[in-house]
């Protein structure tokens, strides 16, 4: 159609559309670069790690350097496995969860019940700050508290305490957020029936918000399973399976670190990391799945 407008404007539309296309291309390309590491890392772990996977890998403890060296020299797979790491991770993460879950949920309920109050705001802010504290600092703290004064030596308990301080803020937040979404009428209905306050919390609030809290707990667990730095300062490591919480204990990430530092054990790095990744991802995906089924 002919232009009716007597004043003629320069037509930039082609250039604008071209710009638009270039920008979209850039967004797609940069996004692809952003997520490429996840594919590269997982494929590297699978390719290099799978060959060490065996029955022994899960059910035997770590070999010593000499055994590893002779096996590598004769071209065999390194004997032994990472049972001490699996048991140690299980022990420390379970103990950390045991400390963090009651503390986190109770504080989350407190924050929910006292919206806008000063003490609650303070607790919320402090919990947020705790969440940002680098894990190595928490390790150092746990060393100063538990290793020096309670277990008088490196111990699983010290490791658990540092991990639990990491977990608490995440659980507090997810508990509060979940409870906030529960309609007030449910709570009021229970209170109107004369149900005591603590029963309302235990029988109404927590069951209603259970899946949301579970999501937060699983996510917190998946975060701390891979933590290495605080455990180096607290749990130290061990070549044996140890269930005594006052003794030095190994963990999967600690084993990765040990293998990394021992040239003879290099072959075990990838399989151990792969196992660690698989466990972390399972927790991660399960929590996402639960979160999704809630909506």
């Amino acid at each position, binding site marked *: 159609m002919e232009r009716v407008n007597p004043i003629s404007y320069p037509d930039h539309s082609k250039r*604008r*559309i071209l*710009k*638009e296309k270039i*920008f*979209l291309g*850039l*967004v797609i*390309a*940069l*996004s692809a*670069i*952003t*997520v490429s*590491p*996840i594919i*590269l*890392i997982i494929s*590297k772990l699978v390719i290099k790690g799978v060959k060490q996977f065996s029955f022994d890998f899960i059910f035997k403890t770590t070999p010593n350097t000499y055994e590893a060296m002779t096996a590598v020299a004769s071209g065999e797979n390194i004997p032994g496995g990472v049972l001490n790491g699996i048991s140690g991770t299980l022990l420390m993460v379970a103990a950390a969860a045991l400390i963090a879950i*009651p*503390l986190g949920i*109770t*504080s989350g309920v*407190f924050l929910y*019940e006292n919206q806008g109050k000063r*003490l609650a705001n*303070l*607790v919320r802010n*402090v919990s*947020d*700050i*705790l969440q*940002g*504290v*680098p*894990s*190595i*600092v928490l390790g*150092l*703290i746990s060393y*100063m*508290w538990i290793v020096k004064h309670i277990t008088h030596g490196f111990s699983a308990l010290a490791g658990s305490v540092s991990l639990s301080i990491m977990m608490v803020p995440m659980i*507090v937040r997810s508990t509060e957020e979940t409870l906030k979404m529960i309609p007030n009428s449910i709570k009021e209905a229970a209170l109107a029936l004369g149900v*005591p*306050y*603590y029963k309302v919390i235990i029988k109404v609030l927590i069951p209603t918000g259970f899946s949301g809290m579970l999501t937060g707990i699983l996510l917190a667990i998946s975060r701390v*399973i*891979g933590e*290495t730095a605080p455990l180096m*300062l607290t749990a130290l490591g061990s070549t044996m399976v140890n269930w005594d919480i006052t003794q030095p204990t190994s963990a999967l*990430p600690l084993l990765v*670190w040990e293998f*990394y530092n021992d040239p003879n054990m290099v072959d075990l*790095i*990838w399989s151990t*990391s792969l196992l*660690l*990744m698989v466990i*972390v991802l399972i927790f*991660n995906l399960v929590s996402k799945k639960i979160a999704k089924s809630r909506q």
Partner: protein
Amino acid sequence: MNSDKITKIVLVSVSFLILLIAGGMVFSLVSGAIPSFKEFGFSFITSKEWNPTEGRENYSALPFIAGTLMTSVTALLIALPLSFATSLFLGEYYRNTKIATILGTMVDLLAGIPSIVYGLWGFYVLRPIMVDLGLGNQGFGVFTAGLILSIMIIPYATSLSNEIIAMVPNDLKEAAYSLGATRLEVTLSVTVPAARSGIFAGYILAFGRALGETMAVTMLIGNSNLIPDNLFSSGNTMASVIANQFGEADGLKLSSLIAIALLLFVITGIINGVGKYIIKKFD
């Protein structure tokens, strides 16, 4: 006393425990750091030397503060364009599509990878590339550490800015579209300005993460106790020096490491506080 009162007391006292833990942390760090501060005074953050030789012991946090800032800023600069593009992909261009869900899950998974696995990958995959390029000290150095850090912090920056970008009201965008603006023009002159403080807060929180990351940096930065001359020289960050030197530390050295932990605690606390404050103001 009735059960309601007991319940309230239990709730308050358990929550108080959180304050107690935080207070105890500050107290322990400060009291652990005092011997070092007493010995070195202000030169703990101004002198350039970290020297554990007996008799001439001198500990300063400056090389590690420099290393921390250099790696974190490098990481932030690399992460900026990548996470900006990804959050536009997720929150604007492909919002609510299948491809965005997949991409979003992958970004989340990036946040789930343990630091030590990033370190391994950096050591065995990135470092050889740096060696081939002739960069860094055998591939180690500030830049290599910053590069791996950038991958680690991208999820933090992305998830927040993507959420905020997706929240920008449609009316605003539609108004601009109705004036004949292209999608790019709408994005850059309406969506992003409307979401800017959220995006900014995301980067601040990501920066806070980068400051405290330990394992991956420890494995890639080259571990020297000098102020890095340039992006490709080796160094140490505040977190990595604690991880490296803690094993053999006691006395004045341990106290100095605790002092570094205190500095790190304060710096990350401030950075996170600022980030959270911006988010709160934005809400």
